[in-house]
């Protein structure tokens, strides 16, 4: 319902103009909601283009909008070319296997995976999977921890210094330790997921735990006294109190925390991937930097814009979820 509503909301003025209702007023509305942001973007592109032209680096000029557009096309083209190659590989393999089974019915065909390089789109996928794993893991730990801390002033006093100390720690500081611990503990001959993935996930988790813990605890601790009294008069036991009162009452604050956590997770991930060599966007940026071709800077700029867009998109998704679970429909969530 939400999606339908918001779609209609921005389409509405166009529909009205088309129908001839309140034309002047609706044109004004369109200018305000779509025209002005568009002008802002255009001005930015112009300034960027002008600035890029006047910065020279050892790898050529700083990439402007034109180069970025070109490199995005290249990256997409490479992706599809790679996909075609993969398909061709599987086709050939199937043919070969069919042939061998025909020649020798006892032969059990082996399927080998295509081991071509990761394309840009694959890397985006890896990054998303990694960030969501780290974020989910963090949420699973942080929300219950926040609730428990929020319910008890003593626990809050006990945990607060620890939280405050770990909250501002940069992912780069955690990474060496995490890498060593993962290497020591994650020892298998046949790893389901690569070590670099685990390292990145754990680093992301460690960095994005705190906003959710702090906000959940705050939300639970500031449940209106009246509602706590109701719970006491009803003699709700601890579990029921948490389920029926503490969690619903703190949902808005929990989501404030989750959204902060997710945006931190996404920022941390890029740094973690650079250092852990997890094949995602962070590694892409690092590899392009090491590569040092004349296209590299343009490609890095594509990655930066992609990172920004995905970060924005992730936040919108969280906002959608927040709106759909929030009981306070009168609150403006943005």
């Amino acid at each position, binding site marked *: 319902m939400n999606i339908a509503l918001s779609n209609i909301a921005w389409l509405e003025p166009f529909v009205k103009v088309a129908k001839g209702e309140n034309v002047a007023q609706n044109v004004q509305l369109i200018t305000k909601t779509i025209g002005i942001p568009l002008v802002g973007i255009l001005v930015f592109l112009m300034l960027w283009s002008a600035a890029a032209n006047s910065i020279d680096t050892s790898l050529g000029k700083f990439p402007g909008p034109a180069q970025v557009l070109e490199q995005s096309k290249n990256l997409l083209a490479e992706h599809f070319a790679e996909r075609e190659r993969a398909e061709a590989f599987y086709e050939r393999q199937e043919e070969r296997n069919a042939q061998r089974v025909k020649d020798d019915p006892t032969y059990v065909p082996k399927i080998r995976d295509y081991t071509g390089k990761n394309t840009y789109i694959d890397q985006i996928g890896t990054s998303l999977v990694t960030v969501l794993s780290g974020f989910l893991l963090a949420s699973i730990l942080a929300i219950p921890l926040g609730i428990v801390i929020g319910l008890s002033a003593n626990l809050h006093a006990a945990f607060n210094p620890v939280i405050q100390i770990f909250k501002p720690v940069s992912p780069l500081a955690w990474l060496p330790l995490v890498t060593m611990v993962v290497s020591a503990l994650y020892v298998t001959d046949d790893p389901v997921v690569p070590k670099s993935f685990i390292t990145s996930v754990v680093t992301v988790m460690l960095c994005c735990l705190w906003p959710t813990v702090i906000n959940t605890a705050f939300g639970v601790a500031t449940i209106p006294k009246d509602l706590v009294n109701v719970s006491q*008069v009803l003699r709700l036991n601890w579990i029921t109190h948490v389920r029926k009162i503490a969690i619903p009452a703190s949902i808005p604050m929990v989501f404030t925390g989750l959204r902060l956590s997710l945006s931190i997770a996404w920022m941390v991930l890029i740094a973690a991937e650079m250092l852990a060599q997890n094949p995602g966007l962070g590694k892409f940026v690092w590899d392009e930097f090491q590569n040092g071709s004349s296209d590299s800077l343009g490609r890095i700029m594509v990655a930066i814009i992609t990172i920004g867009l995905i970060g924005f998109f992730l936040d919108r998704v969280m906002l959608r979820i927040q709106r759909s679970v929030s009981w306070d429909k009168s609150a403006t969530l943005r």
Partner: protein
Amino acid sequence: MNPLLELTQVGIEFPTPKGPFCALQNVNLKIAKGEFISLIGHSGCGKSTVLNIVAGLYQATTGGVVLAGKEVNEPGPERAVVFQNHSLLPWLTAYQNVELAVQQVFKGKKSKAEMKAWIEHNLNLVHMGHAMHKRPDEISGGMKQRVGIARALSMEPSVLLLDEPFGALDALTRAHLQDSLMEIQKDLNSTVIMITHDVDEAVLLSDRIVMMTNGPSATVGEILNIELERPRNRIQLADDPTYNKYRQQVLSFLYEKQRKVDDSMPVEKAKEPEKEQAAEKVA
């Protein structure tokens, strides 16, 4: 006759940085089953504290409360409270709010169907049957308070505690709810303790009005028996000399004997007469 609820030498002290603050002392009160008691007094005189002690939300420092032969020392549904600001859970509908209470009190005693019927019965009792599936933010202040009363009644409390239940409502809505409450109390013969600021409300609804002296160390000043025939009708009573005599007695207690002289709380002082005037207009 054995009182249902007995407060004996109840006193309470709150710790403050300047040493303990004695809010209440020597509060003695016996309440029979089916009685409607109002507690009236100036702001800050400890009316709410008395109610919270009976509710079990505060622990008395001295003395104690006995309900039906058992000492009160924790909150419980047999002493259901209707709070001033309805305190409905905003994420639940009216029905679900009452359901939470009913499930808690009648777990294992009523079947699902019986519970549903009981919840609906209580909501109908307060004339909220038509809006039982609305959430608190979709209904008016008066309706929220009705749901709050339905929730309290659904617990089948031995004593119903009302903490300024109509204080936040406009005069007309308040009059409606007072009539509803009188009706319900007559039908169910509930024992009620109500805190109020409103002299008319107290005289109209109560069997006895307990007038509290000003704090600190507040206590019961006078108790006024209201011997008016029930059912009471606010329009007829407006010209009734007995009614007006009771009213005058409460007013004289509040504004002559216990006149607020505390200058440190000018805001409170200014608010009080205003409320009285508003209340007088209703009657």
